[in-house]
Every structure is written in C-alpha cells, then in structure tokens.
C-alpha cells in the first residue's frame, strides 16, 4: 500500500541521478532527497525543543517564585501551568526526541551508512514529514483555541481528558489527541521506510553484521514503535469519539473503563522509552568507536542486548500503574519483568565502558557528549530500579523522584544523544567543521546545570513532593525554606542551561557560514557515509554506489597500516 500513495506534483518530480535542475520548492519545501527531509525533521525538532524549553522555563519560574510575572509569559495560572506541563512533556517526547533521533538521524544516516542513494520510498518519506509538520502545527495551535491547550498531562488519563466539563479544554483535548495520532501515523510511514531501506537496500557485500550500530538501533526502534503503537492509535480513536461523539469507552457509569486507556497508553508508552533510547545508544556507539579508535566491544552483544531489551519492554508496561487501581497481584509479575530489564541494559552499559578499555581517546566535542551520555544514563538507569520495585513505588509513584529519574533517562537520550550525533555528523551535513572550543564551552554549560536541575529534584521527590502541582505553598509539609531553596536552585540552573544553548546556535550558524572546510572524512572514520562528499550531493555517490568489504568498526586493526579501515576498501 505504502508505495502506491497518490503522487503529488507528478509532472515535476525530481529525477534521481538526472540532470534536471530542481526549483527552490522542489529542493527545500517538498524535497524527495532523504538528506533534505532529514534536515526538515532536524530543524523542526530543534524549533520544537526551543518551545518545549521555553515552557519548562515558564513553569519552573512559577515553582521557584510562586505568583511572579514570568518574563516572556506573564503570570502562570493553574490552567496555564497544566497546559505548559502537558505540552512540555508531549512536545519533548513526540515532537523533539522522536523526530530528531529517529526521523532526522534515520533519514540522514540510513541510506548513507548502508551505501544507498536514497530511501526506498522517497514520496512516502516526504508525506511522513508533511503529516508530522501538520501534527506539530496542531499541537501549537491548541494554545490559541477557546479554553486553551490540553492540561491533563502527557498521559491524558480519562475521564479528565474525555470530558470537557472536567478539563475545561474541550477543543484543546481533541487537538492534543489528534496531533498525537497524526504524529504516530507519520512515524509509522517513516518507520516502514527505515525498516525496508535497511533490510533491502544495503550495499553489495554488506552482511547483517556489517551494518553500523546506529542503523541497527534505528531499525529496532522503528520496529518497537510499529508493534506497540497500534493499541494506542485505536485508543486515540476511542478517545476522540468519547470527546466529540459522546461514546463511553472510558466512562465507567456507561459500561466503559478508564483503566483501559492506561493499559492502551502504557503498552505503547513503555516501549516508547526504548524507541528513543536505542537510536541514541547507536549514535553513541559510532561516536565512541571513532574517538577512541577502538572496535566496538562485542558488536553482537550490543545488538542482542538491544533486541532483548526491546522484547522485554513489551512485558513491563503496568509498572506505571502499580498504584493506579490495577489488580495488585499483577504488580508482582510486572515487578519481576521490570527488574529483569536491568540485566540486558547493564550488559549494554558495561560493553560501552569496556569499549573505552585500551583505546586512544581524544576529547573532541562529540566524544564529550557521548561519554556524558553513558554516565548520565547510568544514573537514570539505576534510579529506575527504585521505581520498578513495586513496594517502593507505592511511595515514589508520581513524586518528583519519578520526574528526576525519567529526566535522567530522557535528557541524555534526547538532548545529549542528539548533540553527540549532531556535532559528530555536522561536517558531513554541512561540509564545515564546528568550532571545538565553543562546542566544549557549550557542553560544560549544559551538563553541569543539567545535573544541578535534577539532583535537587530527587531530594524533593524523596521528601514526598508530588508532580504537576503549580504552587507548593498550599502544602505546609512542602513549603519548608530548604525545599524552596532547592526549587530555586533547579530553576536558576535551568535558566543557565537554556541560555547556554545560544552558544550552540551561534556555533552552528558561524561554522555553517565560515567554518573551515571539512573534507570527506575529518574524523578518519571507517563507515560508508564518510566516503561520500561533504555534504553529499543528490544521489549520495554520483560516481557510483560503494561496495562493502568489512565490518563498520575496524579501528586500529593490526593487519592494516592506517588506524582505520574503511568499509569500502577492497582487502
């Protein structure tokens, strides 16, 4: 079905490998080239990240200094607060992490790394981005409709999300679920493209174990997404009907059940964590091997742990619902499966640390990000054990401990992983080198405030502070002076961190305009994308597509003179 999508612009579509001059709109607005679509995803994602960051700034200011007139937003009312929190969560996961990590890096890297000239379905690819853009516009537009944006948290538990008389955001709720559903459709289309491209279009000679890790990870992530999102798409339709038609799928008084939504949501929601984690892990694998001049320690081990984690992630979803009124006996099952996940993930982390052993490490900006990913994600991972243990989760559920935990996982994934990948492949994408000193300054000014934001929140969570409350002054136990100090520390750190991103944007624009030329392979890396020109032209290798002779991480091989052995170099 996918390849039969009606052709738009049927008369003027781009000729692959031909000499047809493309107009501006064909090249930049409705491109078929995978690299341009990747850039569209990348910059839409970054734009949404700025918005999500701004939202975080607005509600953190309210928490640190209750009732102040937040510069740039105004007074944060309770309705504002809920809308900001909800949109921050939804945007950062669905409109930042997924488009940047899966769609942008997937689109950019998969064809280049497997030695193909484009994705297998370029038109589906373009359609995928257009649907994604539409969904992003809808979620942003929901701030300007009557009642404002949806404020029922990114989990959208009914009946709050289905009944306008409870949420007071009738249109906003529907726009939220519509935007999310459209985003899923976009990524289903994109996912089919990634999977089939990586499965079928590999360069001659590239066997399964010669595929770079990041490609594998994006494919596994797409598969996880595809197999988990179905129930939630069905649930999304049910929710829209509940909102707009007055059905009662989630209304207990008329024969429905609100818990059903929670199952539909988390059956997707937990694999979703790994959907965004795996691409970041793949990026880190590529960056770490290049900058430590080492072969990845146990290529197949990493792969099997990723697949194992992916499969296990389908069996753990109800640990988000321990105290949500599920059958308490089920919690025991989900505790066991949840803690089992620690085995493959720990193995994966060990393997990454072992990759450093015996290396020759240079601390360029991408490497700093990759190393930071390992360390910060380690913290995120171990704090998950607290929450997976059912007995402890009774207390921890929905406190700031949970919040700090998943920011310690999602932040390394979505922000640190993205910066690692972006700074690593920037020379390929734009043909210019980034300024390393500015990059390092940006790194430290991001990493240190990040820890200062979320470490205090662990403490606040342990002290019993619950999430999504716009002002703790109503709770005597939670408005102690030391607590307010920690909140202010977190907020000020956040402001510093957001400000530091200006360095990044300055660096990108400056390097793009006037950075030194990068050449084909500035990092002396061995994977196929570095054999194409920087930036690669339309069709990637106009002189002929490469052939693959060996695995992706042959660094410092004793039989080879150079310390890297490109995949396309005949033996």
């Amino acid at each position, binding site marked *: *079905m*996918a*390849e*039969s999508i*009606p*052709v738009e612009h049927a008369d003027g*579509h*781009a*000729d*692959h*490998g*031909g000499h047809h001059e493309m107009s501006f709109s064909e090249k930049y607005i409705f491109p078929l080239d995978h690299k341009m679509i990747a850039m569209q995803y990348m910059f839409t994602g970054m734009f949404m990240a700025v918005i999500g960051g701004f939202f975080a700034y607005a509600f953190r200011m309210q928490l640190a200094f209750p009732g102040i007139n937040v510069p740039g937003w105004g007074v944060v009312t309770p309705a504002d607060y809920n809308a900001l929190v909800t949109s921050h969560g939804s945007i950062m996961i669905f409109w930042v992490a997924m488009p940047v990590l899966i769609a942008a890096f997937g689109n950019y890297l998969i*064809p280049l790394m497997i030695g*193909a*000239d*484009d*994705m*297998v*379905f*370029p038109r589906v690819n373009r359609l995928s981005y257009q649907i994604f853009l539409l969904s992003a516009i809808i979620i942003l537009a929901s701030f300007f409709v009557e009642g404002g944006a949806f404020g029922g948290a990114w989990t959208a538990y009914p009946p709050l999300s289905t009944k306008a008389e409870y949420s007071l955001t009738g249109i906003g709720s529907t726009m939220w679920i519509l935007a999310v559903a459209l985003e899923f459709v976009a990524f*289903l289309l994109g*996912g*089919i493209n990634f*999977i*089939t*491209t990586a*499965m*079928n*279009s*590999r360069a001659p000679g*590239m066997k399964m174990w010669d595929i770079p890790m990041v490609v594998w990870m994006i494919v596994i992530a797409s598969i996880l997404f*595809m*197999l*988990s*999102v*179905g*129930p*939630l*798409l*069905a*649930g999304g*339709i*049910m929710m829209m*009907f509940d909102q707009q*038609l*007055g*059905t*009662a*799928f989630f209304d207990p008084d*008329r*024969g*429905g*059940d609100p818990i*059903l939504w929670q199952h*539909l949501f988390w*059956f997707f929601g937990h694999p979703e964590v790994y959907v965004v984690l795996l691409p970041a892990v793949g990026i880190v694998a590529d960056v770490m091997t290049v900058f430590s001049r080492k072969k990845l320690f146990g290529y197949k081990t990493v792969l099997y742990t990723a697949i194992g984690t992916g499969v296990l992630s389908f069996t753990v979803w109800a640990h988000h619902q321990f105290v949500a009124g599920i059958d308490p006996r089920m919690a025991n099952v989900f505790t066991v499966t949840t803690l089992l996940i620690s085995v493959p993930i720990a193995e994966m982390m060990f393997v990454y640390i072992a990759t450093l052993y015996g290396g020759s490490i240079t601390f360029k900006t991408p490497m700093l990000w990759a190393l930071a990913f390992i360390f910060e994600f380690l913290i995120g991972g171990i704090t998950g054990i607290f929450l997976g243990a059912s007995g402890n989760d009774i207390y921890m559920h929905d406190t700031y401990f949970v919040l700090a935990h998943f920011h310690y996982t999602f932040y390394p994934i979505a922000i640190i992983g993205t910066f690692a990948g972006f700074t690593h492949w920037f020379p390929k994408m734009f043909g210019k080198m980034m300024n390393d000193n500015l990059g390092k300054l940006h790194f430290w000014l991001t990493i240190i405030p990040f820890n200062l934001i979320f470490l205090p929140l662990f403490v606040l969570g342990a002290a019993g502070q619950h999430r999504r409350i716009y002002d703790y002054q109503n709770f005597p136990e939670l408005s102690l002076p030391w607590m307010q100090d920690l909140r202010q520390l977190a907020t000020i750190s956040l402001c510093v961190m957001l400000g530091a991103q200006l360095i990044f944007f300055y660096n990108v624009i400056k390097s793009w305009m006037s950075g030194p030329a990068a050449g084909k392979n500035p990092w002396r890396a061995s994977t196929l994308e570095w054999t194409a020109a920087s930036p690669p032209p339309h*069709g990637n290798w106009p002189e002929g*597509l490469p052939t693959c002779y060996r695995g992706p991480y042959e660094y410092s091989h004793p039989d080879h003179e150079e310390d890297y052995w490109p995949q396309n170099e005949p033996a």
Partner: protein
Amino acid sequence: MSARPIATTRSAAGMPTPRLAVWWVIASEIVIFGGLLGSYIMHRIAHGEWAEYAANTNTMIGATNTFVLLTSSLFAVLAHQAAERGDGKTAARFLYMTTGGGLVFLTIKAFEWTSEISHGMTITANTFWSFYYTAAGIHALHVIAGMIIMLFVAQTAKRNEDLHRVEIIGIYWHFVDIVWIFLFPLLYIAK
C-alpha cells in the same frame, strides 16, 4: 515512477521492497485492530447483557458481506495471477471487479447502518454499539483506502506497467478480508 532510486531495486532481504513493505504495513495494522478488538473482547466477556444488544445485529447481512469480501479477494488473487502471466488487461479487469466488490460491501453496510441507526442503535446508545461502529468503521475506512489505491494500480496495470503492484495491493486487500473474517463472528455470530 520512472526515476526510482537505485535503493528501491535492491533486495538484500530476499524479497522485493514493495512486498516487504506491505508486510510491515500489515504488521502495524494487526496491532491497531488487535488493540481495539482486544479491548472489545474484554468488555464483551465482562458484560453479560451485551449478548442481548448483539442479538440486534443481522447475521444474514454480515454473512452476505463476508461472502462479498471473500469473492472480491478471489478476484484480487486472480488479478495477481493474471499479472504474473504478464496479462495487464485481465489483471486490471479483475482489479475493477475487486473494487466493485468493495463497493457492494460498503453499500450493504450503508443500508445496514441506516436501518440500525433509525432504530435507535446509534454509536452512543451503549458501549457495545460504540465498539460495533468503531471497529466496523475503521475496517470500512481500510476498504475505502484499498479501493482508491486499487483504482490507481488498475490504471497502470491496464498499460502493462508496474504489474508487481497488483500483487501488493492484493496482499493488502486479503488482509482487510481477514480482519472482516474476525469481525464477523465477533460482532454478528457470538450472541
């Protein structure tokens, strides 16, 4: 589709790319219907009284529609068989007949729903009817999408171009048929 990327013509996984893709589409559709029908079955078992509501569905109409879809599936596979022989004209004719089958299916469905709605069995009457209209409605959307794509495929097949697409849309159509094979007992027979 004259200028397809070289990538599309490779098949390292041992299957032509379009056929591989349609199986992935089907996998993602299975979980969509699986989630919906799973939710329906849970409620159906929990609510004894739903059997009474289900008694209002018309088994004969359901059976007729099953017959129509099965027959259209036969046409689809015959179209594929003709396309394999390189006979694009026959393939196109069979595809039009398949599309016709879809049209008959939708017409019958329209009459059925009209009658049910006019008797007060609307989507909001109770949760059984909500599931009934949602499940059958999503399925009908797939039928419509399949028909539209099939008309495009038939257009090119008539000119003996891109005959491999006949098989692809056929596989998708059979999947839609299989979904109905399960909807039929779930909504019509189990009472």
